């Protein structure tokens, strides 16, 4: 409210208050006047009553006097009576009895007697002797004796009288025939005094008038003698109303009047308005003063309040201004950009950060620009149209109140690079500040941190290592999934708990003490610790505990990272085990075995005990490996290892030395025979058929035994001697055992000699080829030759193939020996073909190692090309085991040979593993029945049956059959009778040198005679 309005209002208030006060005072005046009028009426009534009563008593007293005959008494007596009569009537000054002529007959005051009195115009006027009291005009003086009627008195006389006067009351009485007049001098002082006393309380003048208006007496000096104004009298209108009151405004007087109810007397009370209003004036003054005071106070208060409010308003406005500036300063200090956009899309406020951003981007400032169309908006739209349009749309929705706030996090390509921005906008509806406030913060740092945090969280979550985080009081805050996986404890199990829960009880207190010491000093501890899983199992872990410190360097967290090293420990154990054990069989290997043997030697030396070493070598194991593959060979070795294990005591040690060699250490044996018994048991156990993946294998060992201390006192010697003994077993038909003897050492040496010699044999031409004729049973002619190798050792003489071929196989010379033999045979065969024996077939033994050579075919082709021998006359003899192996190389070579036209024959048939049915599938042309069946074919029914069956079966599948080792006519006859195709043996001829064979051929060519010469050379 403005000052003008306020003061107008205030003036209105003062005016209305003053008016109200004035009206109230006016009402008070009217009421006061009315009150005084009423009081005056009451007083005049009281006075009238008193006056009437007083006059009535006097009147009655006079009437009473007349009733007696007192008036007839002599004057002195009458005087006494008169005196007594008025003794107690103070309103009567004297009482006189007048004769008809007016002479005073007797009087209470003796001075009156004798006087003649005349009264002019007594009221009411009487005709005759009506019984009415008459009131005469006033007399001056104390009594008739000294007084005179006022109407006749001079002004001096009035002055001299000094207020002393009386009113004659006349009563005409007849008594005793005479007419008398009784005159009572009414004492006005008595009344005036009464009236004055009463009027002291309420000022005013009382006047007593005769009914005709003649003033009789009054309280005021001025009215004492009745200067009655006509205007005072007229309003009384006594003819209409004998009592009443009125407010005489003209004379400022209040008047109340009343006529005596019995006598011609009127009382008029006149009150000056000023006197009546004295109290009112005081009240009015007091009230006005009070009202003025109140109005002034209220006004003053209002004015003070108004100015106070105005000052407050000004202060508030100043405060608002200051607040606005402060707010601006605060907003300017914000690192975020703040924009305020009004409802008209114009910028209302842009803080310093925003201004700097725009100047930094080389943009015009936004001052009062319009969002969406100004240069800055165009720039932003250019930067990222999609984003800008989305924001613009959101801003419109915000403005329209459709959404309350907008939040966005987005990237912006700015000059300094790609930045993350966060936009927050809200609508504000404060009065005078409607619009939208948008705040844009660069949150690139936060985003990076979030990424880092996310990464860390991912690591925490995904880590294969268990992670446990505690607070500074070592209460678990968090564990990761790996923790749960390793320990079995979930987050719920752990959070808030102490990691002590995991303790296994395997460590002493000192261990943990050291751990905490390290943590305290270095903030890091790592080591191996054994803890307990939830399921109660203990496990080793590799634990790293780091103390995390806050900015003040106070430890706030501990982070424990651990991995379950159960596996690693097991691996270590496994490696150790592997290093000491054979990979395949799990048996102690050479190293561990030697270690054990050393210990046993030491022990036995001290105790004089005896122990044995058993050297076990599997017979023909190589063939299994070569034919069935290493897989089967491995399985076989494992089986053998198991079986050996079952044959010895738990204290004994079984070891695989490599390949198919096993060593057994039998500790604390009493007798050498104990070792033999074990060897026998081994032979027995190993002889059992092995069924491995469908293959039935028969394996036999050769065992050599060396005893401590008899056969050696050191390990090397003992092992060597056991080895020698084993060889001895091999040489003696295998599947047996031998104790070492010193003689064996010589044989072993011989074998060694042979190996060395054999290497030189090819170079030295010590090898030569012999040929044994193959004779067809029909016609008994030589149809072929089996090429057989002979070694003419310079020292040992002729060495049979049985002796040197195994050596050659073992030392790997067999391939080159085989190739040499094939070349020699083809060369010789070509020679014989050239000599005309073109039907002759050359049969050559080919060993498994040869067949396994990848270049075997090439070698064969080369030999054929070199020698010019026709491949269709060449026959390769192989063992049946070779054919059943499904080696790719082998198969390819066989196919290649067949492609060349070379025929295949199975040597020593019947000793191997193959069944006849199986043979049908093989690409072979001929079976050679082993000599062991042929030898007893005429003596043993089983052998005869077998031989017969073989022949029949072979024929049924289209194979030729040759019987080896035919030595007798009976054998020949049996074979012939059973349809065998060919035979070879001493019955016809042993193997012959080429020259000799040529002679034999010449001799038999076309000759069906049997050979008489038999040379025992095979």
């Amino acid at each position, binding site marked *: 409210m403005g000052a003008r309005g306020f003061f107008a209002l205030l003036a209105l208030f003062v005016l209305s208050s003053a008016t109200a006060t004035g009206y109230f005072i006016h009402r008070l005046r009217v009421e006061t006047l009315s009150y005084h009028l009423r009081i005056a009426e009451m007083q005049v009534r009281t006075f009238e009553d008193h006056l009437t009563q007083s006059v009535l008593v006097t009147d009655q007293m006079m009437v009473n006097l007349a009733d007696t005959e007192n008036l007839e008494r002599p004057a002195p007596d009458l005087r006494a009576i008169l005196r007594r009569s*008025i*003794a107690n009537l*103070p309103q009567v000054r004297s009482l006189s009895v007048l004769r008809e002529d007016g002479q005073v007959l007797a009087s209470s005051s003796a001075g009156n007697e004798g006087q003649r009195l005349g009264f002019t115009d007594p009221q009411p006027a009487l005709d005759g002797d009506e019984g009415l009291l008459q009131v005469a005009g006033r007399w001056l003086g104390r009594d008739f004796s000294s007084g005179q009627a006022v109407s006749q008195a001079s002004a001096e006389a009035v002055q001299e009288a000094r207020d002393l006067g*009386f009113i004659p009351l006349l009563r005409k009485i007849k008594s005793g025939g005479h007419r008398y007049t009784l005159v009572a001098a009414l004492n006005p*002082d008595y009344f005036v005094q009464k009236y004055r006393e009463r009027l002291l309380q309420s000022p005013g003048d009382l006047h007593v008038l005769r009914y005709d208006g003649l003033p009789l007496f009054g309280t005021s000096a001025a009215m004492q003698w009745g200067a009655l104004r006509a205007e005072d009298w007229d309003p009384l209108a006594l003819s209409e109303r004998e009592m009443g009151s009125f407010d005489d405004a003209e004379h400022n007087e209040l008047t109340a009047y009343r006529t005596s109810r019995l006598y011609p007397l009127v009382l008029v009370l006149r009150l000056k308005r000023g006197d009546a209003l004295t109290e009112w004036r005081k009240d009015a003054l007091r009230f006005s003063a009070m009202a003025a005071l109140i109005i002034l106070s209220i006004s003053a208060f209002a004015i003070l309040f108004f100015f106070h409010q105005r000052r407050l308003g000004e202060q508030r406005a100043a405060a608002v201004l200051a607040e606005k500036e402060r707010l601006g300063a605060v907003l300017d200090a914000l690192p975020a950009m703040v924009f305020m956009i009004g409802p008209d899309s114009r910028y209302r406020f842009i803080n310093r950060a925003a201004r700097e951003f725009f100047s930094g981007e080389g943009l015009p400032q936004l001052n009062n620009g319009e969002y969406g169309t100004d240069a800055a908006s165009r720039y932003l739209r250019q930067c990222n149209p999609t984003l800008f349009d989305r924001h613009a749309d959101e801003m419109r929705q915000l403005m329209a109140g459709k959404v309350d706030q907008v939040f966005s996090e987005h990237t912006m390509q700015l000059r300094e690079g790609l930045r993350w921005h966060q936009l927050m906008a809200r609508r504000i509806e404060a009065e005078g500040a409607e619009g939208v406030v948008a705040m844009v913060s660069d949150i690139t740092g936060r985003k990076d941190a979030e990424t880092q945090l996310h990464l860390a969280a991912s690591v925490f979550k995904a880590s294969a290592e268990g992670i446990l985080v505690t607070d500074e009081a070592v209460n678990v805050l968090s564990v990761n999934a790996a923790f749960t996986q390793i320990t079995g404890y979930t987050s719920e199990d752990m959070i808030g708990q102490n990691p002590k829960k995991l303790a296994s009880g395997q460590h002493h207190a000192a261990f943990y003490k050291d751990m905490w010491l390290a943590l305290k000093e270095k903030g890091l501890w790592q080591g191996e610790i054994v803890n307990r899983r939830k399921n109660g199992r203990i496990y080793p872990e590799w634990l790293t505990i780091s103390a995390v410190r806050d900015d003040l360097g106070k430890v706030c967290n501990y982070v424990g990272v651990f991995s379950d090293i159960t596996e690693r420990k097991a691996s270590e154990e496994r490696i150790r085990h592997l290093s000491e054990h054979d990979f395949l069989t799990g048996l102690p290997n050479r190293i561990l075995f030697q270690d054990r043997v050393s210990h046993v030697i030491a022990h036995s030396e001290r105790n004089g005990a005896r122990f044995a070493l058993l050297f076990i070598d599997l017979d023909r194991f190589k063939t299994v490996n070569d034919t069935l593959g290493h897989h089967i060979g491995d399985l076989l070795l494992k089986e053998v290892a198991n079986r050996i294990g079952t044959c010895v005591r738990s204290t004994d040690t079984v070891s695989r030395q490599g390949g198919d060699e096993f060593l057994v250490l039998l500790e604390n044996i009493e007798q050498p025979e104990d070792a033999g018994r074990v060897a026998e048991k081994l032979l027995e156990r190993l002889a059992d058929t092995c069924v491995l993946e469908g293959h039935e294998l028969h394996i036999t060992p050769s065992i050599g035994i060396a005893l401590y201390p008899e056969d050696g006192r050191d390990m090397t010697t003992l092992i060597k001697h056991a080895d020698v003994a084993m060889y001895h077993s091999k040489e003696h038909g295998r599947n047996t055992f031998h104790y070492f003897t010193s003689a064996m050492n010589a044989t072993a040496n011989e074998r060694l000699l042979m190996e060395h010699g054999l290497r030189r044999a090819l170079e030295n031409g010590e090898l030569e080829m012999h040929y044994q004729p193959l004779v067809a049973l029909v016609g008994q002619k030589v149809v072929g030759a089996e090429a057989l190798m002979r070694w003419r050792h310079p020292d040992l003489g002729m060495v049979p193939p049985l002796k040197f071929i195994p050596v050659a196989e073992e030392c790997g010379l067999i391939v080159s020996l085989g190739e040499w033999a094939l070349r020699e045979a083809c060369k010789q065969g070509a020679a014989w073909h050239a000599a005309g024996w073109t039907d002759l077939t050359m049969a050559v033994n080919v060993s498994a190692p040869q067949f396994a050579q990848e270049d075997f075919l090439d070698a064969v082709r080369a030999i054929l090309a070199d020698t010019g021998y026709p491949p269709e006359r060449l026959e390769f003899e192989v063992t049946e085991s070779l054919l059943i192996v499904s080696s790719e190389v082998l198969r390819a070579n066989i196919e290649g040979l067949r492609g060349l036209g070379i025929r295949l024959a199975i040597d020593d048939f019947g000793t191997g593993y193959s069944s006849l049915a199986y043979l049908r599938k093989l690409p072979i042309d001929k079976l050679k029945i082993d000599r062991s069946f042929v030898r007893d074919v005429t003596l043993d029914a089983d052998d005869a049956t077998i031989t017969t069956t073989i022949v029949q079966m072979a024929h049924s599948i289209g194979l030729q059959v040759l019987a080896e080792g035919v030595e007798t006519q009976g054998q020949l006859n049996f074979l012939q009778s059973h349809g065998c195709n060919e035979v070879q043996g001493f019955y016809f001829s042993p193997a012959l040198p080429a020259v000799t064979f040529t002679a034999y051929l010449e001799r038999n060519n076309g000759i069906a005679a049997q050979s008489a010469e038999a040379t025992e050379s095979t």
Partner: protein
Amino acid sequence: MASRFVSFFAVLTMGLLSLWTAGAATAADAVSHLDRIRANKILRVCIWPDYYGISYRNPKTGQLVGIDVDLARALGRDMGVTVQFVDSSFAKLIDDVTADRCDVAMFAIGITAARAEKLRFTRPHLKSDIYAITTRGNSRIKDWNDIDKKGTVVAVAKGTLHEPVMRDKLKNATLAVLDTPFAREQEVESGRADVFMTDYPYSRRMLETTDWARLVEPIGTYHVTSYGWALQPGDDRWYARLESFMSEIKRDGRLMTAAKRHKLDPIAVID
């Protein structure tokens, strides 16, 4: 009513008068009042029953009230006799005492030379100046000096000490001597007289019992009179007994107590 009362009083007085006149004459000379009082066990005390504050018979109750009534009863108690009050007035005082209608007059009798010729007075126990009573409405009498003016009527009671004093003192005013009860008040109130003269106790009565009376005090001392009790001359033993009583009451405070009781302590005389 007043007249009826007056006539009753008159009859009563006359009756008593005739009864006691014979007896008094026989015993007057020879026997002391004291012996007779003790013998009869009756103490006869003359009073003026209109004397307000001294020996006033309240017309509304008929009870006697006043300082001398109290003291007379005290005297009776001292002597062990019954007190019998005998109505008298200043006009009849000498006659009543001389005629032995009472043993002592106890109504604050002004000790004047004229009375002392006929009566024997005790030592005074009160003393009073002369005062005037006028109406409030009387404009002619404003102060004491207005009294002795031509045309002024001054009323006095017959037999009172005021009668000779005023007769002697007034030069211009008319003296009206009245001899009926309450006549002075009636004269003044009805306007037949302007003032009447009286003493302290009576003026007190006027101011207290009327609403019209106005006291006009003398300027300075006008005429102070001592009041005492009166008895027949000659009876020394009776006189001595009274004097002794007067001394006792002055000494023991009974006088002052009684004076205070009747608001007369301003005029009490305790030597």
